[in-house]
């Protein structure tokens, strides 16, 4: 589904990604693990075309995405839920939810999104998206890309700084959308959470992928993982 090969990325003069290689197969949930500053967010942004300069190859369903504009990449069927959530304060909650254009059939209906996140239904009338709590904003940021019909979702630390019940709710959501055939690339700091949703884990260090651990081997790889993540 998504094949990343030799991906390099730069912010101005700083060379951040140094040949990132990994793949995500259709229907998988795959995580990118790594310390702060390893380049996980930059990888997500590079896939989406949101970095000033990138080289290498990002193939989605066999089509090259490097060289396309972010809007073209979105139209190909990739959607991002960014680390900073990207909720718009000048838009109401409903406007935020309806903002991303439909890019393909097969997205969730608004009703289905409200079923996954009942809080959003209650807060639908809120005039400014940024008036929501952090957890609600995260639900909104995930919910709105489920509507679009994009089947490849990039979720950048969706559980960061959230209360345990909300983390569980997001975990359920990820398993639910996996069952519906969505493919997910997930950035996580919390590998205990990652273990509950993912099929495979890639470990990033200094702008490179340094290891791949299938989820069933995660338990036995704990020592290695602690070393990678420095926890």
């Amino acid at each position: 589904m998504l094949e990343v090969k030799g991906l390099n990325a730069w912010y101005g003069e700083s060379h951040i990604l140094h040949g990132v290689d990994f793949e995500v197969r259709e229907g998988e949930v795959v995580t990118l693990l790594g310390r702060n500053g390893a380049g996980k967010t930059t990888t997500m942004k590079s896939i989406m075309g949101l970095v000033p300069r990138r080289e290498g190859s990002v193939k989605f369903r066999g089509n090259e995405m490097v060289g396309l504009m972010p809007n073209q990449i979105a139209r190909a069927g990739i959607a991002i839920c960014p680390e900073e959530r990207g909720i718009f304060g000048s838009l109401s909650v409903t406007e935020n939810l309806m903002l991303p254009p439909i890019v393909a059939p097969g997205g969730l209906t608004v009703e289905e999104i409200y079923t996954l996140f009942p809080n959003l239904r209650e807060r639908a009338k809120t005039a400014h998206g940024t008036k929501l709590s952090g957890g609600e904003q995260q639900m909104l940021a995930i919910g709105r890309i489920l509507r679009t019909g994009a089947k490849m979702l990039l979720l950048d630390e969706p559980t960061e700084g959230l209360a345990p019940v909300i983390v569980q709710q997001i975990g359920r959501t990820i398993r639910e959308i996996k069952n519906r055939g969505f493919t997910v690339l997930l950035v996580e700091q919390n590998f205990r959470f990652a273990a509950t949703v993912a099929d495979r884990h890639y470990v990033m260090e200094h702008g490179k992928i340094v290891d791949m651990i299938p989820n069933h081997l995660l338990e036995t790889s704990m020592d290695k993982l602690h070393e990678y993540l420095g926890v």
Partner: protein
Amino acid sequence: MIMIFGIPGPLLFGQLLLGLINGAFYAMLSLGLAVIFGMLNIINFAHGALFMMGAFVSWILLNYLGIGYFPALILSPLLVGIFGIVLEKTVISRLYKLDHLYGLLLTFGLSLVIEGLFRNAYGSSGMPYRIPDMLSGATNLGFMYMPNYRGWVVLAALTVCIATWAIIEKTSLGATLRAATENAPMVQAFGVNVPRLITLTYAGGVALAAFAGVLAAPIYSVNPNMGSNFINTVFAVVVIGGMGSIMGSIVTGFGLGVVEGLTKVFYPQASATVVFLVMVIVLLVRPRGLFGKAA
């Protein structure tokens, strides 16, 4: 004769109406500036020249092609809007990565070029544009005679301003515009062609200026300087209302027109400067303008 505060009623109402008319133009022009500034982060100094172009295009349509006022009200904004698309695509879009100042200088230069070209072709004495028959004459309102055309200008301007506000605040296109104003890369990452949206926003703001130009053609003579005469006050209106605020531009535009009109009645010597006086006071008390949001 009715006297109000020692002023003859007809004089007071007459100046109020004149103030409303000027306010209608301030509102339409500052609205376009606000829309453009919100999206492009450029202060469009060419706005006055494009307003003038709107008036000229309607004059040209009438005198060369026999196309009358009402079709011109649609055609002229359309043609000037297309000119705006060309401007945005060819020159303005090259400046988005640079400081605001470059956009200001470029559009200022553009306004000089556009005005110069029209001055060369048509001189600067000004040419009359007849009020369409349907809107000529005056109506007795009881307390004053109102020229029909002036009533029409206020009505048309209000309608266009409110329609623009509604599009931006109440439609999904408007939501996309607001979102792109806040965080354009994010909106583009959702699949919206943001560069095209920016071009169309510029064209929309420019079309508003041209529409105002057509409305102005029968009131002020059609001449190459008609834009620059207005635009200084309009920039003051934008500063007072708060850069980029839609409702702020509309309310401030009409409001300051009226303030100007009243000043003409009570203290005529200050009528040319009162707007700038208000600007200074507002800037001292509320540097973001009356309707400006905190950054």
